[in-house]
Protein backbone atom coordinates (compact mmCIF):
# COMPACT_ATOMS: atom_id res chain seq x y z
CA UNK A 1 0.00 0.00 0.00
CA UNK A 2 2.85 2.39 0.88
CA UNK A 3 4.58 1.76 -2.47
CA UNK A 4 1.32 2.21 -4.40
CA UNK A 5 0.50 5.48 -2.60
CA UNK A 6 3.96 6.87 -3.41
CA UNK A 7 3.54 5.81 -7.05
CA UNK A 8 0.08 7.41 -7.11
CA UNK A 9 1.44 10.74 -5.87
CA UNK A 10 4.65 10.78 -7.92
CA UNK A 11 3.33 9.03 -11.07
CA UNK A 12 6.74 8.87 -12.73
CA UNK A 13 9.09 6.16 -14.01
CA UNK A 14 11.00 6.54 -10.77
CA UNK A 15 9.63 4.83 -8.61
CA UNK A 16 7.51 2.87 -11.15
CA UNK A 17 10.73 1.10 -12.23
CA UNK A 18 10.62 -0.51 -8.78
CA UNK A 19 6.88 -0.66 -8.01
CA UNK A 20 5.50 -2.12 -11.26
CA UNK A 21 7.64 -5.29 -11.40
CA UNK A 22 7.06 -5.84 -7.68
CA UNK A 23 3.28 -5.52 -8.25
CA UNK A 24 3.45 -7.88 -11.25
CA UNK A 25 5.26 -10.53 -9.20
CA UNK A 26 2.89 -10.14 -6.23
CA UNK A 27 -0.30 -10.46 -8.28
CA UNK A 28 1.19 -13.28 -10.40
CA UNK A 29 2.13 -15.39 -7.36
CA UNK A 30 -1.23 -14.79 -5.64
CA UNK A 31 -3.04 -15.69 -8.89
CA UNK A 32 -0.94 -18.85 -9.35
CA UNK A 33 -1.52 -19.91 -5.74
CA UNK A 34 -5.27 -19.32 -6.11
CA UNK A 35 -5.38 -21.32 -9.36
CA UNK A 36 -3.43 -24.17 -7.73
CA UNK A 37 -6.11 -24.31 -5.02
CA UNK A 38 -8.99 -23.70 -7.40
CA UNK A 39 -10.88 -26.74 -6.09
CA UNK A 40 -10.97 -25.17 -2.62
CA UNK A 41 -12.86 -22.11 -3.89
CA UNK A 42 -16.63 -21.91 -4.15
CA UNK A 43 -16.93 -20.26 -7.55
CA UNK A 44 -20.63 -19.68 -6.91
CA UNK A 45 -19.79 -16.97 -4.38
CA UNK A 46 -19.49 -13.41 -5.63
CA UNK A 47 -16.48 -12.76 -3.35
CA UNK A 48 -14.62 -15.60 -5.04
CA UNK A 49 -15.27 -14.27 -8.53
CA UNK A 50 -14.22 -10.81 -7.32
CA UNK A 51 -11.00 -12.29 -5.85
CA UNK A 52 -9.97 -13.82 -9.17
CA UNK A 53 -11.10 -10.80 -11.17
CA UNK A 54 -9.12 -8.32 -9.06
CA UNK A 55 -5.90 -10.32 -9.05
CA UNK A 56 -5.92 -11.52 -12.66
CA UNK A 57 -6.92 -8.10 -14.05
CA UNK A 58 -4.40 -6.32 -11.81
CA UNK A 59 -1.68 -8.69 -12.97
CA UNK A 60 -2.48 -8.11 -16.64
CA UNK A 61 -2.77 -4.32 -16.41
CA UNK A 62 0.38 -3.97 -14.29
CA UNK A 63 2.33 -6.21 -16.67
CA UNK A 64 1.12 -4.20 -19.69
CA UNK A 65 2.05 -0.89 -17.99
CA UNK A 66 5.48 -2.24 -17.06
CA UNK A 67 6.08 -3.34 -20.66
CA UNK A 68 4.69 -0.16 -22.19
CA UNK A 69 6.67 2.21 -19.97
CA UNK A 70 9.89 0.17 -19.71
CA UNK A 71 13.05 2.26 -19.84
CA UNK A 72 16.61 1.75 -18.73
CA UNK A 73 17.56 2.94 -15.26
CA UNK A 74 17.94 6.70 -15.16
CA UNK A 75 20.86 8.76 -13.97
CA UNK A 76 20.74 7.61 -10.41
CA UNK A 77 23.10 7.27 -7.53
CA UNK A 78 25.20 4.13 -7.43
CA UNK A 79 24.77 2.40 -4.13
CA UNK A 80 27.78 1.71 -1.96
CA UNK A 81 29.23 -1.83 -1.99
CA UNK A 82 27.89 -2.34 1.53
CA UNK A 83 24.30 -1.48 0.50
CA UNK A 84 24.71 -3.59 -2.63
CA UNK A 85 25.77 -6.61 -0.60
CA UNK A 86 22.93 -6.06 1.86
CA UNK A 87 20.32 -5.82 -0.91
CA UNK A 88 21.68 -8.84 -2.78
CA UNK A 89 21.69 -10.79 0.48
CA UNK A 90 18.11 -9.72 1.16
CA UNK A 91 17.06 -10.71 -2.35
CA UNK A 92 18.67 -14.15 -2.03
CA UNK A 93 17.26 -14.85 1.45
CA UNK A 94 13.75 -13.58 0.66
CA UNK A 95 13.75 -15.31 -2.72
CA UNK A 96 14.87 -18.62 -1.24
CA UNK A 97 12.29 -18.39 1.54
CA UNK A 98 9.58 -17.49 -0.99
CA UNK A 99 10.48 -20.60 -3.00
CA UNK A 100 10.36 -22.70 0.17
CA UNK A 101 6.94 -21.28 1.13
CA UNK A 102 5.64 -22.02 -2.35
CA UNK A 103 7.06 -25.52 -2.85
CA UNK A 104 7.49 -26.94 0.68
CA UNK A 105 4.92 -24.86 2.61
CA UNK A 106 4.56 -27.10 5.65
CA UNK A 107 8.30 -27.28 6.38
CA UNK A 108 8.80 -23.59 5.60
CA UNK A 109 6.10 -22.43 8.04
CA UNK A 110 6.67 -25.00 10.81
CA UNK A 111 8.27 -22.35 13.07
CA UNK A 112 5.55 -19.72 12.56
CA UNK A 113 3.69 -18.64 15.70
CA UNK A 114 0.35 -19.58 14.13
CA UNK A 115 -0.67 -22.51 11.92
CA UNK A 116 -0.32 -21.85 8.18
CA UNK A 117 -1.94 -24.15 5.61
CA UNK A 118 -0.57 -24.75 2.11
CA UNK A 119 -2.81 -22.19 0.44
CA UNK A 120 -1.93 -19.38 2.84
CA UNK A 121 1.79 -20.25 2.69
CA UNK A 122 1.62 -19.95 -1.11
CA UNK A 123 -0.21 -16.62 -0.79
CA UNK A 124 2.28 -15.29 1.82
CA UNK A 125 5.18 -16.32 -0.44
CA UNK A 126 4.14 -13.46 -2.73
CA UNK A 127 5.31 -10.99 -0.06
CA UNK A 128 8.79 -12.57 0.04
CA UNK A 129 9.08 -12.83 -3.76
CA UNK A 130 8.06 -9.16 -4.04
CA UNK A 131 10.59 -8.01 -1.44
CA UNK A 132 13.30 -10.08 -3.16
CA UNK A 133 12.43 -8.51 -6.52
CA UNK A 134 12.48 -5.00 -5.05
CA UNK A 135 15.90 -5.50 -3.45
CA UNK A 136 17.26 -7.02 -6.67
CA UNK A 137 15.98 -4.15 -8.85
CA UNK A 138 17.64 -1.42 -6.78
CA UNK A 139 20.78 -3.39 -5.84
CA UNK A 140 23.10 -1.36 -8.08
CA UNK A 141 21.60 2.10 -8.34
CA UNK A 142 18.48 3.95 -7.31
CA UNK A 143 17.18 7.50 -7.10
CA UNK A 144 16.02 8.85 -3.75
CA UNK A 145 12.34 8.17 -4.35
CA UNK A 146 13.09 4.52 -5.15
CA UNK A 147 15.20 4.06 -2.04
CA UNK A 148 12.47 5.74 0.00
CA UNK A 149 9.72 3.60 -1.54
CA UNK A 150 11.58 0.37 -0.83
CA UNK A 151 12.51 1.39 2.71
CA UNK A 152 9.02 2.63 3.60
CA UNK A 153 7.45 -0.57 2.23
CA UNK A 154 9.69 -2.69 4.44
CA UNK A 155 9.09 -0.43 7.44
CA UNK A 156 5.30 -0.64 7.05
CA UNK A 157 5.33 -4.40 6.43
CA UNK A 158 7.64 -5.16 9.35
CA UNK A 159 6.05 -2.82 11.90
CA UNK A 160 2.45 -3.81 11.09
CA UNK A 161 3.31 -7.53 11.15
CA UNK A 162 4.79 -7.12 14.64
CA UNK A 163 1.95 -4.82 15.75
CA UNK A 164 -0.65 -7.30 14.48
CA UNK A 165 0.98 -10.16 16.35
CA UNK A 166 1.17 -8.11 19.57
CA UNK A 167 -2.44 -6.94 19.29
CA UNK A 168 -3.76 -10.47 18.77
CA UNK A 169 -1.42 -12.12 21.27
CA UNK A 170 -1.78 -9.69 24.21
Amino acid sequence: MAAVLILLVVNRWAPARLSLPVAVIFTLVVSLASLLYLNSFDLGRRAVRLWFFLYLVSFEITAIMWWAYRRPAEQSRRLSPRWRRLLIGQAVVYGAYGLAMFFIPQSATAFWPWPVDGFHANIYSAVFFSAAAGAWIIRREAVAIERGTFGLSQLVLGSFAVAGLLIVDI
Partner: protein
Amino acid sequence: MPETSPSLPYLRPFITLVALILIVGSVGLFFLPHLVTPRWPPITPAS
Protein backbone atom coordinates in the same frame (compact mmCIF):
# COMPACT_ATOMS: atom_id res chain seq x y z
CA MET B 1 16.30 12.63 -10.03
CA PRO B 2 12.52 12.18 -9.79
CA GLU B 3 11.93 15.62 -11.33
CA THR B 4 13.55 14.51 -14.60
CA SER B 5 11.89 11.13 -14.58
CA PRO B 6 9.21 10.80 -17.30
CA SER B 7 5.58 10.85 -16.16
CA LEU B 8 3.27 7.92 -16.86
CA PRO B 9 0.02 9.36 -18.26
CA TYR B 10 -2.17 6.25 -18.31
CA LEU B 11 -1.02 4.75 -15.03
CA ARG B 12 -2.76 7.02 -12.53
CA PRO B 13 -6.41 5.90 -12.99
CA PHE B 14 -5.44 2.26 -12.55
CA ILE B 15 -3.15 2.96 -9.60
CA THR B 16 -5.90 5.06 -7.98
CA LEU B 17 -8.23 2.06 -8.11
CA VAL B 18 -5.54 -0.29 -6.77
CA ALA B 19 -4.72 2.15 -3.96
CA LEU B 20 -8.40 2.39 -2.95
CA ILE B 21 -8.73 -1.41 -2.88
CA LEU B 22 -5.50 -1.76 -0.89
CA ILE B 23 -6.46 0.96 1.62
CA VAL B 24 -9.92 -0.52 2.23
CA GLY B 25 -8.50 -4.06 2.39
CA SER B 26 -5.53 -3.23 4.63
CA VAL B 27 -7.45 -1.00 7.04
CA GLY B 28 -10.28 -3.53 7.16
CA LEU B 29 -7.97 -6.51 7.78
CA PHE B 30 -5.98 -4.70 10.45
CA PHE B 31 -8.63 -2.79 12.36
CA LEU B 32 -11.84 -4.75 11.67
CA PRO B 33 -10.62 -8.34 11.28
CA HIS B 34 -13.82 -9.80 12.79
CA LEU B 35 -15.78 -8.19 9.93
CA VAL B 36 -13.37 -8.89 7.09
CA THR B 37 -11.82 -12.31 7.77
CA PRO B 38 -15.05 -14.33 7.43
CA ARG B 39 -15.10 -13.12 3.82
CA TRP B 40 -11.37 -13.12 3.09
CA PRO B 41 -9.70 -15.01 1.62
CA PRO B 42 -12.71 -16.70 0.03
CA ILE B 43 -11.55 -20.28 0.39
CA THR B 44 -13.22 -23.24 2.08
CA PRO B 45 -11.29 -23.93 5.31
CA ALA B 46 -9.57 -27.31 5.45
CA SER B 47 -11.27 -29.56 7.99
